[in-house]
């Protein structure tokens, strides 16, 4: 199954989005929250994100959802730091809606490309109908 990594500057934000995504995908799914810095402060850490990617991968690749600014740049750095051969795609999507769409698709056994596509569609969903 495609793994999901949720990257936020805030530990609480990443964990909260993780909770919502797990509710959709189920406990046994490979979803990893990487929030904040090692000491719990606000920020992003490329090495912690890299470790999260390794943890989330079971061979089918990983879709990564990140928040703003250094969330994206640290995630790109994390991919460069990978020693393992893991296919990782950063979805161009809002982190919460994207993570939930990705979780649903991944839990249905969709391939990485499909999961990313679905996550990115979250950009276009109207909330007010």
């Amino acid at each position, binding site marked *: 199954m495609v793994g999901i990594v949720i990257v936020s500057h805030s530990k609480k934000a990443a964990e909260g989005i993780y909770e919502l995504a797990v509710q959709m995908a189920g406990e046994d799914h490979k979803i990893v929250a990487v929030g904040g*810095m090692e000491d719990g402060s606000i920020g*992003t*850490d490329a*090495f912690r994100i890299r470790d999260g990617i390794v943890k989330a991968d079971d061979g089918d690749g990983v879709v990564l959802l990140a928040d703003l*600014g*250094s969330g994206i*740049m640290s995630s790109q750095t994390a991919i460069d*730091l990978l020693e393992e051969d893991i296919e990782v795609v950063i979805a161009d999507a809002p982190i919460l809606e994207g993570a939930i769409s990705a979780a649903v698709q991944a839990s249905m056994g969709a391939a990485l490309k499909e999961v990313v596509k679905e996550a990115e569609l979250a950009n276009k969903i109207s909330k007010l109908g």
Partner: protein
Amino acid sequence: MATKVYQCLQKIGEAIIENKDFLTDLDREIGDGDHGVNMARGFTEVLNAVPQEEEDIGVVLKKTGMTLLSKVGGASGPLYGTAYMKAASAVQGKTTLEIQDARTICEAVIGGIKMRGKAEPGEKTMLDAIVPAYDALVKSLEEGKDAAGCLDAMCQAAEKGVEYTKTIKATKGRASYLGERSIGHQDPGATSSLITLQAIRDFAAENA
């Protein structure tokens, strides 16, 4: 006894830490106000993490970059982290540096920052200090200037670059949300790059 490269790093770190509030104030004007705090935290960790006896400048710069990647927290983490790691690859195995090496280092650093930040000069970023400094270095080397002359020219060009960032609007990073309102403020990242260069120049002058 700490190696020269560690002492130089210490000079850079101390300059960044001394300017913590200044950098944070600049960032509060046009960004999220964490640049000084983040960079000071990063360099405090760097000075603890980098082995003081390590002779290989590549190893020292790589450790510096890796520490910045994981300890800075903001966008300057991956940017400076990548810059130091690219510089490390450019000088791998070397235990001394000549002024000509500055050229290779600058090229690696600029390439790394452009790749990571998807930025070009003129967008109110670190590149607006570093690229003019590189151009001044190339010109100074062609004119046959010595190391001190080259480093002086680099700092002067970077200073002008920082001044130039006051006249342009940001299109990258948090400051880009401000658009036109970012004009009139100098870029914090360009400023910390200038501070880094000045620290290197001062270190070289003291150790000539």
